[in-house]
């Protein structure tokens, strides 16, 4: 009996189809931040990206239950939330890494 495809697979293909987009580049480097909790602002600083781009990606992942959102308690734009990895998110990032290694 085959398992049904995970619901987040369309996101994997979305990023895979445009690997040079800012969003795909951000997603590929998110795991190192999400296991210790990070804000969009902190991730943007480390990736030299715009905080709004990072926030958009994180929001999309959060809507798909791939990252968990916790309010930081800080009154800072793009710093008001801390994001961490969910169980499904780990599978998603593993799949993303596999796709990236196939491309390279």
């Amino acid at each position, binding site marked *: *009996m085959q398992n049904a495809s995970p619901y987040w697979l369309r996101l994997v293909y979305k990023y895979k189809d445009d690997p040079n987009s800012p969003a795909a580049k951000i997603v590929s480097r998110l*795991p*190192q*931040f*999400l*296991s*210790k*909790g*990070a*804000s969009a*602002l*902190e991730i*943007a*600083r480390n990736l*030299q*990206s*715009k*905080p709004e781009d990072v926030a958009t990606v994180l929001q999309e992942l959060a809507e798909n239950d791939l990252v*968990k959102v*916790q309010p*930081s*308690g*800080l*009154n*800072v734009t*793009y*710093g008001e939330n*801390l*994001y*961490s*990895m*969910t*169980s499904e*998110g*780990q*599978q998603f990032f593993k799949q993303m890494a596999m796709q990236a290694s196939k491309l390279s």
Partner: protein
Amino acid sequence: MSAWLAYLPVLMVAVFLNTADIYFMQSDRLPQLQRAPSYWLYMVGHGLVGLGAAYLLYRKSGLDHSDWPVVTMVSALAGFSLLQSWTLKFGDKGIDARDLFDAWKRRVIEDVSQSNTSRKRERQMRVARQLTVKEMASPGRLDGAILQLAPSVKEDGKALLEGFKASGYDTSLLKAQWIASVDLDFAQSLAELP
């Protein structure tokens, strides 16, 4: 060597191997693993598998308690490696221990990530409070840090400072929170400056 002592290394090696495995799957330097209940459950599971394997080796294979190094290595690795890739199939159906342990491990990582995040939130708040006190004691003290950090998030430092002033909120608090949110380690070192 007492019978119970012969099982102790098995437990220690099983816990060490699996803790190291979890540790390297997350990126916090000092994760509070003990705060995640699923971590303890995971360790108990692997401990029991290791102890079960050791029991079988001592009782059924004729190995003596003085052979504890061999039994320890074999039984701890049995839980860590063999069991995690074990699959028993009958036609299309079967027991896939790898999937089971993978799902369990992912749950542990999720719990540890949440625990790390909660600890970070507490640290951000504490460091921001310390920086606010410093800024209130000598206004403008944090401006240099903000001007320095702003380009790294593609922001204009001067515009940020003006925005804080115009917001109507406590400017010192906003500056401190912004620095703590962008770079917590840097914020902490600023807070520790005399």
